[in-house]
């Protein structure tokens, strides 16, 4: 459980700045530091148990079907990294408190920083491959946010984008690699994976997996050739650079290689790739660090170089090499974070980071000068400092490794070259800033920063010195960390003095040659001026823009705004899939065969076919097409009745009426005719496509109809009366068995009504004076016969609808049909008497009716919770009243009432509101209603 807290506390800490930033900066900084500090203490608290050899693990299922568990472990490696992440994180927080200017949104910065910290802790503590990947991506995102923190600056935005693209792409490769790895082992559990090294190495997919995983690690740790994003990420505020780009994030790739070391490292392929890439990175980074003139640029490239060094060690892979790698991780984090913070102080105090403009700061900032010099010396590998020890170990390993076969002598040579360069750039950094006389006056007059801003640097430098003098102190931690990487315990001893040997000689050569290189480095720079510089950012931006333009072109081709094109693609795909399915069927006609035909059926089918074809054929004459459509609708209703579905027939009949009214009303506002615009070829193409799909549908339908299929309806038929208390099974399914579906459907209905209500709001439409042929509308707006009949019909219709509603549970009918009948009756009144007349008498908005319907249905469902039943459980009972006799009451009736109200409300909301648009003279009263924003209708020419 403690493990979970160590991982969760920083994550919870993400919200702390949001709550505390109003209370002032000091309070916010302190409050933000509390949770990480707690996590750090908890980590320390686990140390004794860990030293005693306890396996600290915690796991709960998260998404078991994916193999994703919320599993954490705390072994030596995690502890080492946790100390770096949380410890340096806290120092950075302190430093950032002074670094950021007061007007910057520090709460946001802290939140990002803590988010990053939490995701790093998650990576190093994950005990599940997928969980690890999840946190891995989280670091990419949080580092993107941090690099782009000064989002008003173009270089920050571009740097952030580049970092995200590179590390994000690497993350995808890593995911693929981890999935492969999990597949080989059969589990994503870290313990299983780490114990299955033999299986993994023997798997034929091992090389692919290795390359993918290493792509992830190399992009994250800025290894050659992916190193280019790191220098551009330096656009971030310096605390971010110090934290992400020296101590933690770029170490994530290293961590991954160390973590998976027991599982995937034992091959020649690993050694060759990892040590070569590392060596290339080491030299490349060191070379460019020497040439950069920006303080943070130097540090960035030197970081690249040191990461390369660690990678080489992991590639060599002997126990001592891994030990050296871990030791260097620790040492590098200490001196590089100190250097970054010093660079930030210098930048902060002088206003520039350009070496050319700095100089002589020794006098103004004596303490900073000493601190930076010590940290720089540690970086250069000067004896008695921590950097010396791990570098010496590196030289030893480089001398002994057989990794390149006959060319293995290259390793120590290149290592020494790296050492020379590293001495040169460290010397340059320190000398140019503090000791060389200044060539110009810096923008601000420099002085020492507040001591608390310097405190983190002091602490880190003290660590550098102490570890350098007494490496024994680090042995315990390193021993713990080494054990999980090697998979077994390993005895070792760290010493400052090994006697006069080859590595010492290499160190001396590096020191002397490094000083000489720095001394002559102006010549070097002059020589290099002849080369054209390649700016990674420009190349990257050009690539990104090229990609963007390509995507735009592709999209424009694919998504041209034409519904016809989309439909064509969609239909072609459907045709292909359906056609393929049919082609694979041995016989279309099943064994059930045809039932006999009769005349009525023939007539009905003939009418349907005629109606359908006529609708399509006359589509340019919209009114006629609509009339033909109504023929189809009515015959469909009859079809339902013919095939024993009275509920459907009733529903279809009433929906048909409202649909036609709706379409007629809409047609009033739309052009009456469609101009001929499809070419004959186009029409032919569409006929062929539609016809082919029609044939597919017909074949499918025929194939199903002629086969005996075992329906699942037996359950409903058996349980309708005993379980639902109704003998109309269709209605019982709607309001009881599948009540949740129905609830969703009436919600959709109500939403459609509301959406239409909003769409009609402020709608400006041209209202024609005459029909398409130029004939004026009939002056007889409200025909007398219709008026009187509709008046007489209304109560009858309402009575019928009540009757249909009440009997719905046991006889054909129900809420849907009753609602439609009510709506039709009211709409008839609207048509017969006009909107104004009806509104004077029925003055209420329909939106609340529809919403009340949905609410009633939902509450009925919720009601069953009160009695301890699942949502939408219905109950019923039989009661007897004098005069009425025995009758049934069911909660499903209440639900059906909700359906009824929703249908009435939504239908009228749609039609009555549309009808209102047609009303030329609106009553003044309407100005008070919700429709007041609509402009008065205009007469005259349609706006083009």
């Amino acid at each position, binding site marked *: 459980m403690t493990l979970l807290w160590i991982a969760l506390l920083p994550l919870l800490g993400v919200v702390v700045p949001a709550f505390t930033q109003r209370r002032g900066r000091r309070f916010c900084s302190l409050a933000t530091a509390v949770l990480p500090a707690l996590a750090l203490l908890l980590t320390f608290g686990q140390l004794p148990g860990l030293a005693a050899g306890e396996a600290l693990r915690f796991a709960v299922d998260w998404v078991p079907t994916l193999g994703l568990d919320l599993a954490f472990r705390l072994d030596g490696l995690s502890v080492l990294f946790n100390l770096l992440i949380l410890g340096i994180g806290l120092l950075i927080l302190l430093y950032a408190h002074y670094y950021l200017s007061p007007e910057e949104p520090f709460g946001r910065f802290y939140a990002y920083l803590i988010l990053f910290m939490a995701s790093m802790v998650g990576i190093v503590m994950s005990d599940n491959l997928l969980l690890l990947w999840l946190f891995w991506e989280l670091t990419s995102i949080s580092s993107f946010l941090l690099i782009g923190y000064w989002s008003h600056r173009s270089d920050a935005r571009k740097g952030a984008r580049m970092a995200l693209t590179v590390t994000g792409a690497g993350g995808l490769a890593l995911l693929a690699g981890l999935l492969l790895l999990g597949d080989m082992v059969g589990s994503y559990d870290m313990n299983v994976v780490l114990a299955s090294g033999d299986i993994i190495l023997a798997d034929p997919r091992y090389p692919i997996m290795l390359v993918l995983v290493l792509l992830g690690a190399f992009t994250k740790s800025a290894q050659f050739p992916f190193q280019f994003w790191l220098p551009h990420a330096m656009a971030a505020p310096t605390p971010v650079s110090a934290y992400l780009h020296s101590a933690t994030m770029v170490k994530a790739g290293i961590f991954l290689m160390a973590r998976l070391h027991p599982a995937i490292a034992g091959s020649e392929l690993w050694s060759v790739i990892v040590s070569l890439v590392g060596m290339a990175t080491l030299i490349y980074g060191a070379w460019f660090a020497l040439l950069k003139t920006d303080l943070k640029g130097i540090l960035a490239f030197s970081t690249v170089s040191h990461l390369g060094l660690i990678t080489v060690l992991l590639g060599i892979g002997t126990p001592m090499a891994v030990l050296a790698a871990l030791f260097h991780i620790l040492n590098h984090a200490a001196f590089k974070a100190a250097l970054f913070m010093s660079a930030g102080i210098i930048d902060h105090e002088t206003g520039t980071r350009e070496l050319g403009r700095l100089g002589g700061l020794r006098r103004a900032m004596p303490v900073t000068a000493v601190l930076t010099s010590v940290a720089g010396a540690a970086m250069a590998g000067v004896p008695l400092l921590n950097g010396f020890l791990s570098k010496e170990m590196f030289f030893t390993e480089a001398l002994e490794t057989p990794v390149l076969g006959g060319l293995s002598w290259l390793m120590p040579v290149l290592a020494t070259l790296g050492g020379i360069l590293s001495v040169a750039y460290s010397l340059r950094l320190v000398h140019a800033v503090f000791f060389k006389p200044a060539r110009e006056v810096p923008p601000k007059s420099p002085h020492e920063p507040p001591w608390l801003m310097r405190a983190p640097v002091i602490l880190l430098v003290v660590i550098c010195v102490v570890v350098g003098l007494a490496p024994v102190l680090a042995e315990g931690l390193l021993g713990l960390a080494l054990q999980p990487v090697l998979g077994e315990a390993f005895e070792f001893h760290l010493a400052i003095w090994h006697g006069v040997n080859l590595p010492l000689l290499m160190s001396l050569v590096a020191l002397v040659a490094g000083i000489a290189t720095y001394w002559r480095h102006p010549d070097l720079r002059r020589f290099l001026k002849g080369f054209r510089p390649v700016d990674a950012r420009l190349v990257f931006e050009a690539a990104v823009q090229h990609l963007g333009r390509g995507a735009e072109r592709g999209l424009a081709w694919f998504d041209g705004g034409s*519904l016809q094109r989309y439909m064509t693609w969609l239909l072609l795909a459907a045709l292909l899939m359906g056609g393929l399915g049919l082609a694979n069927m041995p016989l279309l006609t099943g064994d059930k065969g045809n039932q006999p035909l009769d005349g009525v059926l023939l007539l009905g089918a003939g009418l349907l076919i005629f109606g359908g074809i006529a609708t399509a054929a006359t589509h340019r004459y919209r009114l006629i*097409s609509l009339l033909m459509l109504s023929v189809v609708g009515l015959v469909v209703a009859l079809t339902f009745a013919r*095939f024993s579905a009275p509920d459907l027939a009733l529903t279809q009949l009433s929906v048909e009426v409202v649909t036609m009214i709706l379409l007629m009303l809409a047609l009033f506002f739309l052009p009456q005719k469609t101009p001929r*615009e499809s070419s004959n070829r186009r029409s032919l193409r569409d006929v062929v496509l539609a016809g082919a799909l*029609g044939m597919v549908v017909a074949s499918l339908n025929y194939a199903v109809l002629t086969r005996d*299929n075992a329906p699942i309806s037996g359950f409903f*038929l058996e349980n309708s009366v005993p379980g639902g208390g109704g003998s109309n099974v269709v209605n019982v399914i709607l309001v009881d068995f599948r009540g949740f579906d129905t609830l969703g459907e009436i919600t959709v209905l109500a939403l459609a009504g509301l959406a239409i209500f909003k*769409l009609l709001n402020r709608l400006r439409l041209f209202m024609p004076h005459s029909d398409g042929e130029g004939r004026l509308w009939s002056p007889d707006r409200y025909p007398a016969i219709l008026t009187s009949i509709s008046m007489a019909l209304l109560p009858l219709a309402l009575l019928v609808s009540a009757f249909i509603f009440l009997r719905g549970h046991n006889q054909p009918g129900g809420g849907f049909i009753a609602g439609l009948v009510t709506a039709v009756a009211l709409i008839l009144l609207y048509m017969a008497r006009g909107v104004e007349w009806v509104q004077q008498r029925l003055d209420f908005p329909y939106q609340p009716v529809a919403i009340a319907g949905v609410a009633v249905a939902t509450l009925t469902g919720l009601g069953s919770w009160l009695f301890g039943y699942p949502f939408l459980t219905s109950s019923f009972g039989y009661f007897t009243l004098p005069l009425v006799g025995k009758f049934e009451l069911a909660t499903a009736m209440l639900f059906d009432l909700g359906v009824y109200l929703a249908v009435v409300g939504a239908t009228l909301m*749609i039609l009555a509101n549309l009808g209102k648009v047609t009303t030329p003279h609106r009553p003044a009263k309407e100005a008070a209603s919700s429709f007041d924003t609509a402009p008065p209708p205009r007469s005259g020419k349609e706006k083009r």
Partner: protein
Amino acid sequence: MESLYAITTGVLTACGLYLVLRGRTFPVVVGLTLLSYAVNLFLFSMGGLTTDGAAILDGPSDYADPLPQALVLTAIVIGFAMTAFVVILAMRARSEAGNDHVDGRKHEDGEGRP
């Protein structure tokens, strides 16, 4: 009977799809309505075609499959809501864009003048 039913469904589908492929809003709406008739008929027939089946449970009789019926019943109502939404959207689009094209063309060419 089954073959005739299937042919009818197929013809309605084809006509609906042809209209959906037109370049103006109104035919598309009509096409969608026609298509929804076809789909409803298709779905309905998944339970088999029962002649003179019992509508309600009141004795030993040949019941029509109630499940497709329940599905189609809600489909009809939702279909209405969908049609209504699309047609009002078409009206709105015409009022905003000044034309009733759905073929990606921006300009107005020879729309039937009232």
